[in-house]
């Protein structure tokens, strides 16, 4: 009997130790430091509940918010590398197809959870002050007892209609029950603050995406001839607008028309062909050696197909092209990859010779600068 009890005790001890080891081993990884900070504010019980979940890549997990706020859940999103890529108070159901808006939704969910988890009102006021985040109830700014106000108003927004409005300077996120009954957050349009990542983290994140680019295709232009403007020789131009009103940096496509539209890609028209290539309307096997100039005087390189690279930015950005130097033996151009929603840009600088762009599998050397903010510039 004693022997049996000893064995039972040892088994129980083993189970206990295994649980302890497992729970510490299952401490999650985070895509950026700010997420870990939110996670560490969670009550230990919630952390344990989350750690006990069987995490799979690209999974979404929920925990009951309990006493933090009535009838709400805390949402955890996991990326393909099994890292936690989002934690917040769930306000929105599912992911939107607009990835820019998703960044704002995540910001709101993350900040609300931070406020609910903060035990000190000075921490909350510091956050609001540092990020210029202002909470309104029916157009009145709420400063006093913000946590309680948020608990009261956000537990009853399930029937509210939501609108997100942005300019190049600011955002307004509004939940309305009626025209005179609404709650609203206003905050500056600053991608680095809203994304929660600093420039170093954003660059690292972008670099890992560039190293694993999905296959991308050149855009197909299919238009009637009547939509095109004659340019020169037999070429037409489809005007695509200019970058920051600079006439020489544009999204113009140069096209030919014989039965159907096709992009100019011909060694008789080097400049127009290169412009088309870098605006991603020419299918090509050319590769770019992306020399990514990063924070800290560091740089990382990767070799990518030109269509894969430019297609990666298709949904959230506009591409613009300009010549720095049109000397055919020493061509130099800039591609501005502009996110107008958050008003920031990436810049790709390419140096090449005229023949390069017509050689299959040719590698072009580039310099790449990412996440340049524009919304903190002096307005003239």
């Amino acid at each position, binding site marked *: 009997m004693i022997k049996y009890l000893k064995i039972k005790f040892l088994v129980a001890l083993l189970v206990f130790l295994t649980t302890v080891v497992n729970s510490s081993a299952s401490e999650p990884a985070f895509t950026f430091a700010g997420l870990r900070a939110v996670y560490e504010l969670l009550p230990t019980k919630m952390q344990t509940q989350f750690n006990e979940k069987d995490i799979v890549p690209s999974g979404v997990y929920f925990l009951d918010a309990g006493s933090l706020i009535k009838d709400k859940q805390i949402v955890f999103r996991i990326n393909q590398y099994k890292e936690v890529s989002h934690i917040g108070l769930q306000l929105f159901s599912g992911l939107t197809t607009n990835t820019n808006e998703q960044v704002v939704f995540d910001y709101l969910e993350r900040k609300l959870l931070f406020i609910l988890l903060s035990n000190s009102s000075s921490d909350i006021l510091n956050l609001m002050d540092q990020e210029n985040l202002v909470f309104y109830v029916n157009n009145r700014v709420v400063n006093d007892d913000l946590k309680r106000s948020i608990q009261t108003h956000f537990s009853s927004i399930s029937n509210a209609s939501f609108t997100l409005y942005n300019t190049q300077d600011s955002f307004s996120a509004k939940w309305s029950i009626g025209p005179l009954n609404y709650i609203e957050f206003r905050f500056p349009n600053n991608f680095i603050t809203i994304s929660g990542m600093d420039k170093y983290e954003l660059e690292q994140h972008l670099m890992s995406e560039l190293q694993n680019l999905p296959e991308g295709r050149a855009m197909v232009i299919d238009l009637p001839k009547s939509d095109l403007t004659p340019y020169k020789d037999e070429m037409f131009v489809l005007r695509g607008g200019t970058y920051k009103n600079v006439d020489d940096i544009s999204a113009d496509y140069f096209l030919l028309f014989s039965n159907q539209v096709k992009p100019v890609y011909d060694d008789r028209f080097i400049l127009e062909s290169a412009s088309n290539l870098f605006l991603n309307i020419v299918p090509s096997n050319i590769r770019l050696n992306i020399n990514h100039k990063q924070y800290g005087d560091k740089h990382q390189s990767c070799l990518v197909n030109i269509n894969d690279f430019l297609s990666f930015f298709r949904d959230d950005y506009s591409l613009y092209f300009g010549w720095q130097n049109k000397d055919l033996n020493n061509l130099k151009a800039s591609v501005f990859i502009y996110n107008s929603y958050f008003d920031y840009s990436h*810049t790709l600088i390419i140096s090449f010779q005229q023949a390069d762009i017509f050689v299959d599998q040719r590698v072009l050397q580039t310099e790449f600068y990412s996440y340049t903010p524009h919304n903190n510039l002096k307005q003239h």
Partner: protein
Amino acid sequence: MEKIILLLLLVKSVLICIGQPQTVSVKIKEGVDDKFLISRIESNTSQLLSSLNDDYSKRSAVLSIDYRIATPAAIDGMMDIWEDVKFYCPVGQIDENLLTSGEFYQLRNIPIVVDDDIQNVVINFNKDGKIEDFYLGLAMHQYQNVMDPNSVVDRTRREIILNFIENFRTAYVRKDIEFIEKVFSEHALIITGRVVKQQNLSTDNMRSGLSKREIEYMVHTKSEYIDRLRNVFNNISHLILNFNDIEVNVHRKFPNFYGVLLEQHWATAHYQDTGYLFLVIQFRDDDHPLIWIRTWQDASEVERDEIFGFHNFRITEGVVR
């Protein structure tokens, strides 16, 4: 090897027109007890200003400054300005206080006429009373160009500068002292300014009773600045740093030097301030930008026309002596 000489020009222009006397006499009202030093400074300054007036009236192509009254660097500096513009002292008698900090002496509010404008010059002296620096503030347009907004090259360069500025901001937020150390030139000029007191100007040649704030400028070496910053970083848990109203200009003579002026908001748990930050950044072929000048002025105390810019500094490139 290249040498960059950076001269601080702390000047505010006053529009009055006065004739040009041949000789100038400088009298120090108060400042230091060393009568011999005061006498040297009075004599050297009087001689310099009289000599300038003589050269101006003769329309001399070069200045004839006695090497015994000024250091070679100071003479070179004045020669360089003289090549661009001619100037003279419009008053015969100057009575000023001598400012001192250790073995550094300074006379301010010395009126000089440049292109029909009167500007206040600052003259620095070494411990022997020799003129060490002569700071003449020229109009901003003589020193900087706004980058051409319609040029693809300028637009690209501007994006790279703004990218660097974001890196620079990120370095402070991350308390990355190694990176900050790396981007400052070993010979960087780092200046902070603050208002120390109110006083009435009593210079004979100024409108009497004009109220003017006295601003104290502290000059730090790179190592002093980095040590102070390291100490600050060690004592704060986190830093919120925001840059707003960023302006980028390019130096007229040296197009690889860029001047960046911005409004900086600094906030830690127990302290916050807002100041104007002016940086002179050199972009080199090796792609590692280098900061040569960093100035900070309290936004609540400094007037708009007192904010540092290219016009306060002189940049020359030459051979190391």
